[in-house]
């Protein structure tokens, strides 16, 4: 007999959106459940860490881990799952690239504590109390995990076999990845389980893009009512499509908003550098207007071009020490 392969889902520093993707499998979840044994999924099932600890090494066939690494506890569980799993998939952009939580790498840990616990207009904290990793209360000693200086991606702390970026990846992305793995057609280690082409290639607005597109100035979405059919870049609105991996079905664009880059870069590329190069090719700076003038409305280049990929970017972090 062949036992059903064991599968685990776990979340580190993330929002739970990747978990919702699993629920969004809708009726397919019944097929997944028929094909595999889900042995750990804190969001929906009652198994605990102790259940995972009790497994033999490599007993779990595949673990999908979403979320970035920000605390000692997350690093610990990631390492535990690595030991217990034959395969690890970094699931979602936080796990692959740092994601939105990694925007915190543009700030220091001190700034975060100061804003949250000392400066907010609703705080009443005259004694400047801050959460502590160890504290005493009514004679009891309580502990919290250490909060790292830097937001890390999963492969900064464990070896990762496959990657599935997206914020979040769609249910279709997940189900095709599960299919590939269950059929045993394993691609080479390190593969990103999505097409290696840019979003523009599948976007249905691509054909509205002029062949010799030139832009004199970028506009913010607050300054223009976007045409619902025309290429955003051709309208002078920053759209991350050229520097972003395909796979989402251009969902945001169908919602009449530009791509913000959540599926991360193509293989081997730095997303921000690629985007700046793409913009450079279409910007028409001249004697009348400097490059700075054309870019005046791009008020947050780091947050715009690396919104989901700071942990994997050339920019690095404001903090060199991560723990």
């Amino acid at each position, binding site marked *: 007999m062949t036992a059903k392969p064991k599968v685990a889902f776990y979340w580190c520093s993330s929002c*739970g*959106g990747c978990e919702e993707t699993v629920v*969004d499998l809708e009726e397919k979840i019944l097929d997944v459940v028929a094909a595999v044994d889900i042995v750990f999924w804190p969001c929906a099932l009652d198994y*605990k860490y102790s259940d995972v600890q009790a497994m033999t090494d490599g007993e779990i066939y595949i673990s999908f881990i979403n979320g*970035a690494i920000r605390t000692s506890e997350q690093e610990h569980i990631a390492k535990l799952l690595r030991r217990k799993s034959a395969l690890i998939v970094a699931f979602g952009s936080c796990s692959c690239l740092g994601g939105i939580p990694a925007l915190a790498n543009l700030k220091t840990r001190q700034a975060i504590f100061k804003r*949250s616990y000392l400066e907010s207009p609703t705080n009443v904290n005259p004694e400047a109390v801050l959460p502590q990793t160890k504290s005493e209360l009514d004679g009891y000693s309580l502990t919290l995990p250490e*909060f790292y200086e830097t937001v890390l991606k999963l492969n900064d702390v464990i070896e990762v076999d496959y990657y599935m970026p997206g914020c979040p990846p769609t249910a279709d992305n997940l189900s095709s990845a599960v299919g590939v793995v269950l059929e045993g057609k394993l691609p080479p280690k390190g593969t990103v389980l999505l097409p290696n082409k840019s979003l523009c290639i599948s976007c249905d607005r691509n054909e509205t893009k002029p062949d010799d597109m030139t832009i004199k100035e970028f506009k913010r979405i607050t300054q223009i009512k976007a045409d619902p059919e025309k290429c955003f870049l051709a309208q002078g609105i920053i759209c991350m499509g050229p520097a972003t991996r395909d796979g989402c079905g251009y969902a*945001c664009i*169908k*919602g009449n908003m530009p791509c913000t880059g959540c599926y991360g870069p193509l293989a081997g590329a730095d997303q921000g550098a690629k985007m700046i190069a793409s913009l450079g090719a279409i910007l028409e700076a001249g004697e009348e207007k400097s490059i700075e003038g054309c870019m005046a409305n791009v008020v947050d280049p780091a947050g715009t071009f690396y919104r989901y990929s700071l942990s994997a970017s050339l920019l690095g972090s404001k903090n060199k020490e991560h723990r």
Partner: protein
Amino acid sequence: MGTVYTIDPITRLEGHGKIDIYLDDAGNVDRAFFLVPELRGFETFVEGRPAEDMPQITSRICGVCPTAHHMAATKALDALYGVEPTQTAKAVREFFYNLFMFEDHLLHFYFLGGPDFIVGPDAPKSARNILGVIDKVGLEAGKKVIEIRKRCRALMAEIGGKPIHPVLGLPGGVAKQIKEGSREELKSFASEAISFAQFTLSAFNDIVLANKAYVDLVLSDTYYLESNYMGMVDSSNRVNFYDGKIRVVNPSAAEIDKFKPADYASVIAERVEPWTYIKVPYLRKVGWKGFVGGESSGIYRVAPLARLNAAEGMATPLAQEEYERMYSILGGKPVHNTLALHWARLVEVIYAAERLAQLADAEELTSDDTRNMALNTPREGVGIVEAPRGTLIHHYESDESGVITKANLIVATVGNSAAISMGIEQAARKLIKNGVVNDGLLNMVEMAFRAYDPCLSCATHSLPGKMPMEIRLKNKSGLLINKMIRN
């Protein structure tokens, strides 16, 4: 020697959480603590980002209730830019928002909190989940749950780009017009949603209310806390999720405050504790009285039961009927029984469905007047919506170019953090006696927590962010003597 039990992680909730239970030498509970071990720092790292990106960035606080953050942020942008959204934008936003509330509440009932009742609080842990629910209610009913949710999510994708992290919100408007050709589908969905809400209520009736043991559990003092309540109301003091003033009532259900979003900081204060990353809010006017309930308590609660307690009724007929039935069976207003949250949530499900039907008929829903482009110089703005888990507040300041300089967020689960801490300790004291602890009892401790549908992803927005839960039982000196294996 005493013992410490740890439940780690707390399961069937969104995010990370941990419960430490300390037993005395006789094996009874001395203290229990609810700790949130994470923080992400959203307030800090949104500084420097363009204001118009807030609806999409802050939705990443929580992938379970992204629409709540998206909408609170969008309303904060209306205020920041001093712009009134068009009638069409308001209708589209509220329609979208009620799709979300309908879906999210059902997710909790069937996937997260419901299994405790439908399958049973002390059923084996391998069955206490959606699959156990499907076993119990039948595959056909299970498929119905999946089908309605799928249709709801497809509509959300159509209107807002994607259901997880939508993109429709802009200051003064929405990004995309709903075409008149879609109206029939919207109406048909709304009518289906009403039937499904009724189906769910009748299942709740048959499985929970008809079972005396469950009703006793709901009414027991294990899950009881007298507190203040907060929720958004319309001009007739009826529950509204999208817009209105915020009403606060005391533990006797008398109004003690009613405020506009911009005034939130004069009503709510937050306390910092060294032993958890989550902040503890309370009513500024009453003051911090400690982790205590009762008439003089400064603690307020939010979420479905709090909304119903803080309002004077529901704005739609079927919801009003169910609202009256709930209070008549549970002994009048306010209801302090925490597990009644599950019932209140279903009253809101039917309200959301009925509200969808009203909005699907609204003439302005499909007009192309989707945005008011007349933005003023941005300065400061507060946006409030009722998230599934309670009152959600986004407050931004920006420079003249609309780049964020300061942000303050009070998320729904944080509003309940004091009540959750107290509820867990109380349940632990009642349930764990003479050192007898088992998986079923520990699950019943978690139920004190899960009723709130707590979202620790949200709650830890200010820190790194997650919330499975752990319960540790420790002796008096804090030594983890007996690590509990739950099976």
